[in-house]
């Protein structure tokens, strides 16, 4: 029913594998055709603009150019928050002035007009036609499951680039997840930073960030956290047990991608998207929630 | 026949000044006994927006060497918005005059408030100097048309 270009990002082949599988499963179910940008490359993430602004724009711009070359003229949907941000920056730079565009084109050595709009997966799934399509395919529900939707920084900020529905209290993911019957909680740390790569290169300074996010989600009664970004999920999931050890806290908050919840409620087998591979055990909560929720009315 | 060669030549400059700011500022310059060249003749108007572009053309036509339009600072107009119109009109006017071969320095719009006596003095002094350096204006003048209106 709907086609768009798809930029998976590097994490999807590694720690984001489950995310990728759930995206594929949901897309198949609702008839969404995701056309991967031919021969895409790394967006440069935060590392590139740490070092050099031109490089930080040129890397993602090459992906825009690749999509343009393909000639489909479709929107580019991006599944990772950082990739989304970088691609938006690049597009807006190309559109900002002919000089900037010429400079970028010279670096990537191909034409780049920025003609294809870039959208986040959250924006894509928030569209009424997609919401309806998802709704139509849901067979099970998660009634009563309390989820904290975590958006992170780069899908919300800077708002001129990311264009969220609300930079402080975005609701796109909340509305999508609510389709499953799960109950998104109103909490305070939806858009607070998880530390991103500082979890690797400055872990002592960055670890409290994760702890605060988890604490606040817990404070507002969440059973789990839902994200729309492989790195956010990795930081909150993989580092969780160690952080509990360091800062105290005897609970575990499983971390899901929003597409995982959708896939699950569409009857996709959890093994098909690696629910069992999460670092914080994630199968049990879902098994119970599904049992409680029963079939979609 | 070169008037410019006359070392005693003094330019005639006409200044349209609004009653509430620039004219008041000019009066204040007098009160403070400030000194400036005697080349400028002031025409008092209620507002700089009263200045019809026709007046300026007429001044050049009749032999003025320079024309100034002075009013309140934008935002301070006694009539609230008049000088915004002045500003727009005379940006256009300046370009029109330039297109017609009048040196843009011969036509100047300046904002001088009622308290800016020193600014009035300095502006008049500078403009008089600039126009003196330019020499007499011949463009548009009746004489010029009579002589065929071509190259000077």
């Amino acid at each position, binding site marked *: 029913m709907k086609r768009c270009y798809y930029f998976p990002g590097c994490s999807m082949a590694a*720690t984001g594998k489950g995310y990728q599988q759930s995206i594929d499963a949901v897309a198949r179910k609702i008839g969404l055709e995701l056309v991967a940008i031919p021969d895409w490359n790394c967006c440069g993430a935060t590392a590139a603009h740490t070092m050099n602004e031109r490089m930080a724009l040129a890397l993602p711009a090459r992906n825009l150019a690749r999509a343009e070359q393909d000639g489909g003229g479709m929107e580019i949907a991006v599944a990772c928050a950082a990739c989304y941000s970088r691609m938006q920056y690049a597009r807006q730079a190309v559109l900002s002035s002919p000089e900037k565009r010429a400079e970028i084109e010279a670096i990537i050595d191909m034409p780049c007009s920025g003609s294809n709009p870039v959208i986040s997966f959250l924006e894509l799934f928030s569209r009424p036609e997609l919401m309806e399509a998802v709704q139509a395919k849901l067979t099970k529900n998660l009634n009563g499951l309390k989820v904290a939707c975590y958006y992170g920084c780069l899908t919300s900020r800077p708002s001129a680039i990311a264009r969220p529905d609300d930079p402080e209290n975005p609701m796109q993911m909340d509305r999508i997840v609510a389709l499953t019957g799960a109950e998104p909680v109103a909490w305070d740390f939806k858009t607070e930073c998880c530390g991103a790569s500082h979890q690797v290169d400055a872990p002592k300074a960055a670890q409290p960030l994760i702890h605060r996010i988890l604490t606040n989600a817990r404070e507002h009664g969440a059973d789990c956290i839902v994200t729309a970004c492989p790195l956010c999920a990795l930081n909150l999931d993989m580092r969780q047990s160690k952080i509990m050890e360091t800062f105290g806290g005897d609970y575990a908050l499983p971390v899901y991608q929003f597409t995982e919840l959708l896939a699950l409620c569409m009857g996709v087998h959890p093994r098909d998207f690696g629910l069992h591979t999460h670092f914080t055990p994630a199968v049990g909560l879902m098994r119970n929630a599904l049992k409680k929720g029963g079939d979609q009315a | 026949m070169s008037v410019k060669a006359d070392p005693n030549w003094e330019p005639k400059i006409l200044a349209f000044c609004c009653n509430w700011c620039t004219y008041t500022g000019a009066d204040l310059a007098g009160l403070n006994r400030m000194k400036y060249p005697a080349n400028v003749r002031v025409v008092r108007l209620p507002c700089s927006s009263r200045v019809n572009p026709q007046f300026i053309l007429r001044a050049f036509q009749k032999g003025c060497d320079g024309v100034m339009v002075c009013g309140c600072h934008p935002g301070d107009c006694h009539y609230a918005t008049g000088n915004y119109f002045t500003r727009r009109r005379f940006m256009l006017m300046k370009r029109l005059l330039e297109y017609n071969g009048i040196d843009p320095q011969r036509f100047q719009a300046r904002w001088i408030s009622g308290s800016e006596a020193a600014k009035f003095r300095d502006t008049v002094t500078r403009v008089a100097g600039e126009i003196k350096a330019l020499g007499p204006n011949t463009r548009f003048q009746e004489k010029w048309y009579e002589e065929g209106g071509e190259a000077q």
Partner: protein
Amino acid sequence: MEECLNARSGAELANSIAARAGVKLHECYQCGKCTAGCPMAHAMDLMPRQLVRYMQLGRMEEILGSKSVWLCASCHTCVERCPHSIDIPSLMELSRQAAKARGRVGVKTVDMFSGIFMQNVKMFGKSHEALMEGVYNVTTGRFMQDMENVPHMLKNKMVGIEPHTTNNPEEIKALIERALEMGGEDA
């Protein structure tokens, strides 16, 4: 000794950084909402607000030598909430680049990670998480960091041994080199 504020030797650099970031330094009235919302402020030696203050005073020395410019996570919370929308992330970033160009690195591990990341992209066109982490651990001597998670990743095939690449990694390498050749405006 008290600080003598007449010395404004960094004014030129500060103004050029501000101009490139599109920031009007005078607009900042030092309310500190940036620091207040900054997730990394607790680890910084110079608060984000103080960064702007030093730039207002034309003193770059303190900024170039700070840890803060390396600890900024580019989360953009500060600029989003700033009453004057002062783009502190850009000030941080450009200051960091200026520091690096002068051979000053406030937090070595951050610099190394970026370097390794980009090296990775330069080699393969795509980044390779496990390889990166491995090289980083070896480079920084933090051999055991995050190693507890490796068995889990291996078991679930979340890390491949073969790095994925673009069709022609040379193309990306050339791209990066062209960008770097153009240099930073200041550096």
